[in-house]
């Protein structure tokens, strides 16, 4: 058998989990031991990928329970065999896989927690940037403030989650029983970021979520005020926006500021 065919057959056995009747067995030596030897690779593949997922999604595992999480792992590995050279990225698509899967799309809270855990992992090794101190604003004339636009740390991620996501994540992370799913029909807006080596997350009010989203898109301070007033049917005062800005600086989210023409 040519090397390419042999590798294809070997990989097929690992992916299928088949060791007793795998076609590759015919190309292996030591007939009395070859199925057992092949099973080392077959088992190691699933164990290793399962460990990657368990490491990146401990709260999802706690919420689902070990048995159901093992089923999720099995489904994900079958649907999304790893392509990246770096194992770090293997688990990236788990939240999306759950959303798109008929069997898992109903686990709304778990999907939201998976999205949060994914964002935390991504923030952990996102590109570096030096946070800016709020004193940087002193370089601008107050009359220029409506034209100020901000650059944010590359780790910043914003998303909308199911109600109760943060409580479920906190409980699962602490090894406690998760609270019952929230009955309120309200979503949670969540920000995730890194400051120095530490990753952080917090819940945002709807107006801060809107403002931060727009600021990240490069809109100026004045434009955000106008947009917020338009979208929310009530004015988002410059004072409230200024409060957000102080918080963003204090949290280490802001890494650049400039006055737009």
């Amino acid at each position, binding site marked *: 058998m040519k090397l390419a065919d042999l*590798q294809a057959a070997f990989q097929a056995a690992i992916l299928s989990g088949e060791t007793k009747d795998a076609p590759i067995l015919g190309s292996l030596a*030591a007939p009395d031991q070859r199925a057992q030897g092949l099973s*080392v690779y077959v088992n190691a593949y699933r164990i290793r990928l399962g460990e990657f997922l368990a490491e990146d999604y401990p709260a999802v595992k706690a919420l689902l329970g070990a048995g159901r999480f093992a089923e999720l792992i099995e489904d994900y590995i079958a649907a999304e*065999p790893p*392509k990246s050279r*770096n194992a*770090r990225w293997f688990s990236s698509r788990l939240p999306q896989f759950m959303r798109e899967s008929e069997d898992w799309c109903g686990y709304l809270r778990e999907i939201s927690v998976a999205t949060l855990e994914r964002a935390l992992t991504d923030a952990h090794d*996102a590109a570096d940037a030096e946070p800016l101190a709020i004193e940087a604003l002193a370089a601008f004339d107050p009359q220029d403030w409506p034209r100020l636009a901000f650059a944010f740390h590359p780790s910043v991620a914003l998303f909308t989650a199911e109600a109760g996501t943060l409580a479920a994540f906190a409980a699962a992370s602490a090894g406690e029983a998760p609270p019952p799913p929230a009955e309120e029909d309200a979503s949670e807006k969540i920000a995730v970021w890194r400051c120095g080596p530490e990753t952080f997350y917090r819940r945002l009010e709807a107006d801060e979520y809107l403002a931060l989203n727009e600021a990240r898109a490069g809109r100026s301070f004045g434009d955000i005020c106008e947009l917020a007033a338009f979208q929310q049917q009530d004015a988002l005062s410059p004072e409230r926006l200024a409060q957000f800005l102080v918080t963003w600086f204090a949290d280490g989210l802001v890494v650049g500021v400039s006055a737009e023409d």
Partner: protein
Amino acid sequence: MQKPAPLGYGLGFRPIYFEEIVATRAPVDWFEIISENYLVPGGRPKAMLERIRADYPIVMHGVSLSLASCDPLDYDYLRDLKALMDRIEPAWVSDHLAWTGVHGLNLHDLLPIPFTQEALDHVVARICRVQDFLKRPLVVENVSSYVSFAGQEMPECAFLAEMARRADCLLLLDVNNSFVCAANHGVDPRALIDAVPAERVVQLHMAGHVERDGRCIDTHDQPICEDVWALYEYTRRRLGPVSAMIERDDNFPPLSELLAELDRMRAIDAAIAAEDVGSVS
């Protein structure tokens, strides 16, 4: 082929030990990193690496080059590897005589190859291309295996020696892998040690394994066993001074236990050196 000077006694760098290494300036001569763990945009992994690099020589050890795969070489990966190499200036760069996937997949395992002329030609050509791209010699490691292939045309030791000669590459001899393979395939582990070209071996790996269902599994989660220590001593007598290190990837003990294993390496080497001096005088 210029063989780098020995670095002494090293450890595989694992983040769990970072704080203690920095705080105590751990008595380790050098560290080996898993290259892929640092092919990330930034954050704590890169910060830790830069901090360790400030105090210790570093060697880069990859697990995804997939040297023996029949897929095309991944030049995006090689570019990332080269960028990391240029940044941290490792003493050398290594990966495995193995493949990790085909058809665009990477199974994150070091999969075995048949020791045939076809595989040898294939691997030699790819090592040469990698070396041309990285503009430095590649260090290639023997792997553990749990199956062997029918119709093999040479033993592993002959394959490794011929590969190194034709590709003009360097070798990383994993003593534990030699032991594991020999146990699983019923051959003498010393055959590989005896056959490797000593002038090309720049590094030794030592690690622990487990025995499960009559088979040795290379788990890196146990202390080094006595049989592997004996093989280490045999290797030392055959190869002389070579940079040596311990890999530990799970079931992490206190750092002091790994340092004690390094001390045992030093003691074995010192005893052999003393014998050599005695025999000369």
